[in-house]
């Protein structure tokens, strides 16, 4: 049975508000990690999925001089 626990909406809002001050890619990665953590998967499974997200977010966009 899946647990009905989840980060409650206003806690998520609180976290999103706090992440607003971070760069877009950092914010997106952090939120994705929380979203995956809420789905009750194992830490290793979450980490695997995050690798893909990181590859996408770390690609330099056009005009990026990093």
């Amino acid at each position, binding site marked *: 049975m899946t647990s009905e626990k989840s980060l409650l909406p206003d806690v998520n809002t609180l*976290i999103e508000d706090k992440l607003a001050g971070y760069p877009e890619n950092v914010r997106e*990665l952090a939120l994705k990690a929380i979203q995956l953590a809420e789905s009750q998967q194992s830490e290793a499974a979450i980490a695997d999925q995050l690798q893909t997200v990181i590859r996408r977010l770390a690609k330099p966009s056009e005009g990026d001089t990093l």
Partner: protein
Amino acid sequence: MILLKLTVENFRQFRGKQEIQFLAPSQDDANVTVVFGENGRGKTGLFRAIVFCLFGERRLSQDGDVPYDELQLVNVSALEANPDTPVKTVVELEFSHRGSHYRLRRAILGMQDEGRIIEEEDEIRLFVTPSSGNIQQIPTIEINEVIDSILDRRVKDYFLFDGEKIERLTRASIEQRREISAGIRNLLNVDALETAIKAVGRVTRGLEKELSGASHEELSRLLKRLGDNEEEQARARKRLDELADEIRLARQEIDKTDKELDKFNEIRHLLERRKSLEQELGELEQQATEALSEMKNIVCKASALIVAPTVINVYEHIDHQKQKGEIPSEIRRDLIEKILEEKLCICGSSVCEGSDAYTHIIEWLKRTSDVSTQDAALNLWRYLSEVRNHFSDDADLVEKKLQQYGNIRSAIANINRSLENVSNQIGTSERHDATKLDDHRKKLQDNIISLEANARVTQSQLEQLQQENDRLRALLKEEKLKVGRNDELSRRSILARDAQDALNDIYSQFTREIKDMISESATLLFRELLDHEGRENLKTIIVNEDYSLQVLDRYKKPFLANISAGQRQIMSISFIAALARIAAKGSKIEIPLFMDTPFGRLSYEHRQNLINQVPTFASQWILLATDTEFRRQEAQLLKNSGKWGKFFMLRSTQDGNTEIVEQDISSALAILRDEEAYQ
């Protein structure tokens, strides 16, 4: 969670099948159910029934040293009426939670075997009916998980509690505090954030391992140091967990040994005395650790006091010279030297060598020093005059702390002496078995003291490692920016580390804010619940890092050690209410407050405040009360609040059992006695 109905069958004093339908919060705002009974009628039995049904636990915190096999749940008269037939004991609890209806049933079979009562687990079932209406039976193996997700067993003592023992929450030991902290984090739903941090951390470590193989020497060095630091931190945390487990196991072993020792009736009173001394010793050791930690902060001041006599001497010497006019000198040294060199006075007359004037000027020269020395001496005089003013305050502080620490150590020494004395008496009770058991127990107790000391040292090492980690992270961030913005691996590594840091920052801000919110909310309620005198003196509740509590007095000094048991009880209730408010995000949390005899230690003003306040912050209040604490005065107050809706009376039957009888509120007021009846 809202409790709806409790059914007990052949449970403790309740023979046959009996039930209580609790008052669920309704539109008319009433939310209080009172279960009233004299001592021994089964109030705690009902409390035990709920804890047993939800968590399968027979032992309550107030059972203390009662041997496990003496905690029988089966109704003895039912068993005696049918000695050859097992008696089924059932507790069924119906409750609602987030729109679903739950029916939890736990049963045991009680039987007699050569005069002994044996109880065996029989069944446990949980049925859930969601708002859609389809009843679902939860597999047995998942029942505990489901119940824990509704009311975490680690925080159950916060919501289902014995009123007189609730103040113990303010005295929790290290491992209890760790459990409570984990339970509170779960209650506040921050565990998903913790999992996210761990998962991102795993990715970061993998990427940094790859990166350290690349050819950036400084980066590799920093990554290695950071990796070592994090491994050390993980080891320290693991060690803390292991120590907590070892302490818990040692305590369990002590309980087991105590049960064996309890068989020796003649030394039972000594065992009880020893247990209470050990508890006192534990609290004093904790106070000593706190005092030592405060002393660490004033060590630099203490070292300054060592040189205080020298500083004061130097000051007085310069001051003396200043008063004599030697510092600053009336005539500057460079002017005198110029006169002697040019042999010409400022008035124009010549100053010949050997003349009276020359000799006089030489005398002046001897009494003056050069300008820079004079300036330095004056600056030193000013500085020392400021410093010496602080010596007396610092000395008072250091003396006070040393005295406090000395008093605690002396109290510890006294308790140790009493403990030795009690242990000797136990040892000389000419019961060989008891002596052997007692030696075993002493070793266990010594082991616990050493484990607890070890845990405190490990905790302090962990804090130092965390500081070093913060420093290394800052350096790493700079280094990564220097070496590899165009490198794909570096970009991924920087991103992962940044996300991990962001989540960690948010987590610490979030938990800090929650603690501040709990402190603030608990303080507000605490001050509303306290009587006038308490309000004058006790100002703020502080929630510490590990969710332990402290209270500050009007001088903002820690005052927990000095407050009464009643005030501790009020403080714990305020903390629970604040926790409930935060978890429910400002509205009423759907967790019942189930209090067994909460008024015993409280003054009338405290009772009055509690009766007025609890129904406003709890969604449901179930109050188990005895005749001396719930009199007509308290009942009238509760009735006036408009929150009281149900009243059950526990009445003695002819065969010594208890029957549950529901009565309306007006009858309750007629039954209850006035204060005068107890005088």
